[in-house]
């Protein structure tokens, strides 16, 4: 077990190093932030001086080494746009904004999926089953921002401000964005649980449990669901990355002040420090969560060998 954790930790560090190196060179390829700093009537000399003040005139490998040296201290430099520490800006947008949104969406997409998936499986081809499968299909087939816009149109405009369409600050503000973000993963999870349950419900050990006279509900939740949970955990692990990414679009539609939006808006402005810090935090979360997911496997399915 210990060897496993150690190895995974080393792997995680490598991945993080790969990510920060990739983003370091990638953003420098996108261009030069200097013209943003100076007036429209600036001379070449002023522009050169501005570049010098940002430290961008030094050779690339020098900048890279300095960057690497500062990373373990959490120092990602100063934002070009806001003249504040970049990591601070990223953390401010991460907590509470993005965490709230991702957590709410994660919760919705997993917790709601269980009763729906179970009901679909146990009453196969019933009304609930058909309805949820149809809805799932539709929800997985539309662009998330379109869903968001339609929801805004419905709840915020037509129904006269039933739910706020912008910003953050209260639970009501969270509802529409979280629902939009959770929609596709929820649909996916319902289908997963349903098919997983269907498979499991026919297995021998379930029939054994039934034959033993155990209550149906006990059978379902104790045995079947546990095994059906495995694919859900896998997919949740993978989809976390997509959820954090997809949050970018949702954050834009709903003006949610989250980290995804911060990073994506920093790109046109060539705000290197913020992009670097944001991508690093994103990768850190992703790698960390995957590690947790791997460990969760051992709890849910003791058959899994931690090789």
């Amino acid at each position, binding site marked *: 077990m210990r060897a496993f954790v150690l190895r995974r930790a080393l792997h995680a560090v490598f991945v993080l190093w790969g990510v920060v190196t990739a983003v370091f060179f990638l953003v420098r390829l996108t261009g030069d932030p200097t013209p943003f700093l100076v007036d429209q*009537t600036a001379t070449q000399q002023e522009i050169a001086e501005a570049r010098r003040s940002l430290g961008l005139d030094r050779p690339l490998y020098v900048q890279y080494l300095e960057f690497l040296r500062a990373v373990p201290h959490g120092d990602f430099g100063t934002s070009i746009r806001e003249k504040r520490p970049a990591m601070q800006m990223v953390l401010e947008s991460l907590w509470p904004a993005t965490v709230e949104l991702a957590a709410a969406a994660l919760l919705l997409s997993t917790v709601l999926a269980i009763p729906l998936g179970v009901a679909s499986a146990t009453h196969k081809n019933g009304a609930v089953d058909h309805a949820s499968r149809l809805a799932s299909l539709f929800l997985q087939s539309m662009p998330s921002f379109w869903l968001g816009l339609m929801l805004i149109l419905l709840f915020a*405009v037509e129904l006269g401000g039933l739910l706020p369409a912008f910003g953050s600050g209260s639970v009501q503000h969270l509802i529409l964005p979280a629902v939009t973000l959770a929609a596709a993963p929820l649909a996916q999870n319902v289908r997963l649980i349903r098919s997983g349950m269907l498979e499991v419900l026919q297995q021998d050990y379930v029939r054994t449990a039934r034959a033993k006279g155990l209550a149906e509900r006990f059978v379902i939740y104790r045995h079947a669901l546990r095994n059906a949970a495995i694919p859900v955990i896998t997919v949740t692990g993978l989809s976390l990355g997509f959820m954090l990414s997809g949050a970018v679009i949702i954050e834009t539609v709903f003006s949610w002040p989250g980290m995804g939006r911060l990073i994506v808006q920093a790109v046109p402005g060539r705000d290197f420090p913020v992009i670097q810090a944001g991508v690093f935090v994103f990768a850190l979360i992703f790698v960390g969560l995957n590690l947790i997911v791997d460990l969760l496997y051992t709890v849910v399915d003791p058959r899994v060998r931690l090789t």
Partner: protein
Amino acid sequence: MIRWTGPLLVALALVWPSAIAAQPRTVDGVAIDPDAELVVALADDTTNMDPRIGMGSIRSNYIRQVFEGLVDVDAQGRPVPGLALSWKPVNELTWEFVLRRGVTFHDGEPFNADTVLFNLDRFFRRNLDKWGLKDVLAATSFEKTYPFVTRWEKVDDYTVRIHTSEPAPTLWDFIGREPMVPRAYTIKHGVDGLNERPVGTGPWKMVEWKRKTSMLFERNDAYWGTQPLFRKMRFQIIPEGAARIAALRAGQVALIEAVPPFDAPALAQDAKLKVVSSPQKLSCRIYLNARPKDKYDSGGKDGLFSDQRVRLALNLAVNKDAIIKKIFNGYALANASPVATVAYGYAAQEPYPYDPARARALLAEAGFRDTNPLTLQLLFPAKHYGQSFDEMTPAVAEMLKDVGVQVTIKPVDFATLLQTASKGTLPPNGGFAACRTGNNLDADDFLRDWSSIAMINWAPYPPELMLLYTATRREVDAPKRLKLLADLQRQVRDWAPVVALYQEVKVYAHSARVLRFTPLPELNMDFRGVALKK
């Protein structure tokens, strides 16, 4: 007992009117709520509250609630006394500002000549060690842009003189419009202190700042001028135009800025809302490559648009009225002068008529016909200036195509555009669509574009225009200078360095509860004298 009543009555008589005057209860006969909080929705946050760092575009909205400059602006764009009561040139090389008395900063520090001297040091980055200040990379570097300002001194506690090495007729503008910061506070708390807890002389004190979300203000009850008639104000950041409108309609905010022109008519029809607007000092144009190869690092070739006839032809090919009516729903201005209509020194010019036939004739005269068509590679910064700009550019390109110009639209992101412009890598047949914001009040701000080597200058002044421009920069006598400016504008209009597209009109919408709100031809909003109905 009877002896008391006399003095008591006198005391009451003295106190009563001011007590009432301090908190009026009605405005124009309508009952108002003096304790109300006004929620305003803006499209963007400010990056910094330090005026030297944070100014420019929407951000000055935040800064100018808290800070003020020596010179203030009225709703028509005319300069009026702010922290300075008056300003005049004492001689050709000296300006004198007489300061307002009795003004204090929010923390109680008095505003006087020492404050102004300190601020001047900060602008020009002098004596920074003496004050113990960190050097900041500001938006405009004063000492580079105005190297002719030599020294400043105080004549008495409320009079400051600024000396220049050559005549500087616009000094009242570029110095006067810059917000003033408190001396003792800035020295003690530094630039970070100014940003985190800004202290200014303005009508509002900043109470709380949740970045990218909202900023809370409280009225400065010790303000020297007309007070806002409500106590609290919140700037809420809502980047999406549709979301701002939804919020206004739902009653979650009471005033929104930057209403997209295509939404304005629907809002105007709502009885519970009012739509108001004001022209801005922002002109959108197509900049054409008219750089001569010897003067500029232009890649060894003359710009294709160096011929004035070609540029004039393109101006005649654009149907500005159609654009303003159809795309902007009337919320834009056609302006043939390079100077915005609400700038100081603007002189109305004969508009460029919409005359495609004449445009074709001019192009033919310059040697461009069907067999040898004029080509234009138009860099187009999509999604940077707003949807109306994005709709307008292809429409304009189509109009140019209609007179035989082969236009290729190249959408680029704004950073790439800036880089191309600043590195000078525009191809000879290149151009770009961009909008020029005036930073200050004076017309010079617009006219200087073509006078020096800069990223915005793709059509340098010919010698005769350069002479005239230099003259406007040396004439300190105001009436004489205004005449020179008018002359220069007429000549620039004929010389047509760019294709003039439109001048921006900024649209605001607010609930009918908000009274006496008048938009400024500035980037910031003014809430002095504004009240909220009960």
